[in-house]
């Protein structure tokens, strides 16, 4: 049986890799990928804790909710990225600094 600490350490590593991607990448799609990695790390935590919660199954249920939320976030985020690309012809976040057309 794998102990809880193993899961927590793996998810900490994945979360920090996602944080690095969000901070360092200069491409909006890669920033979205970093956010996805962070959400995946949190889902791993949910699932790992859910093993001890047999009466409520709270962890697994809310892991499924988190997957749905991530899918919604990606759909809206990619729509915004496509609009931004159409407007500015770039998806580098540092080149997008004007609010008006």
């Amino acid at each position, binding site marked *: 049986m794998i102990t809880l600490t193993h899961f927590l350490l793996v998810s*900490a590593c994945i979360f920090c890799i996602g944080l690095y991607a969000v*901070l360092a*990448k200069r*491409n909006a799609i890669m920033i979205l990928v970093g956010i996805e990695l962070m959400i*995946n790390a949190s889902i791993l935590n949910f699932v790992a804790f859910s093993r*001890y919660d047999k009466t409520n199954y709270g962890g697994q*249920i809310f892991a499924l909710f988190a997957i*749905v939320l991530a899918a919604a976030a990606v759909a809206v985020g*990619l729509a915004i990225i496509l609009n931004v690309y159409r407007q500015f012809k770039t998806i580098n*976040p540092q080149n997008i600094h004007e609010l008006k057309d």
Partner: protein
Amino acid sequence: MEQFLFYAFAAMAILSALLLVSIRNTARALFLLFIVLFAMAGLYLFALADFVAITQILVYVGGVLILLIFAFMLSNKELLADLQSTSQRFMSLPNWQSMSLSLAFLAVLVYSFIAWTKEAPEWMARAQADGSILSPTDDNIQTLGLKFMTQYILPFEIISVFLMMALIGAAHLSRREGSR
């Protein structure tokens, strides 16, 4: 055997995630995300969450990754620009700063997890003492379905309406300007 498989999946997830953030080519990074998501689904299996693992494969690999590849292909000219634009950055941090920031955060997380497991909360200790933790022979999917329809019906409905709102919003946002 179980330990070995767990470490194999964890190493695959972490190593390909590291490669994902260090590679320059966005298309290759997206396909590495594929591997990371599969390895994470394998890790969910070790926590006895088979339905979550299958949903991860269906939703992420089948939906999210296809969307990401679509968006990448529709904004393809960035591929060359991303290779050279290392100068004049003021919003995103330089690489070494973000690396030290995330390493510091990793250190904090690891320290707090290790300190935390020494005194786990008492509901977990009670569940372990009762022997009422999930076992591999449990009927996970049936229990999940019952819980969704009885105990968690309100969050389920809220998330359904939220998903519909988000999809309508995405369809509205990605509409062409001239076609209104």
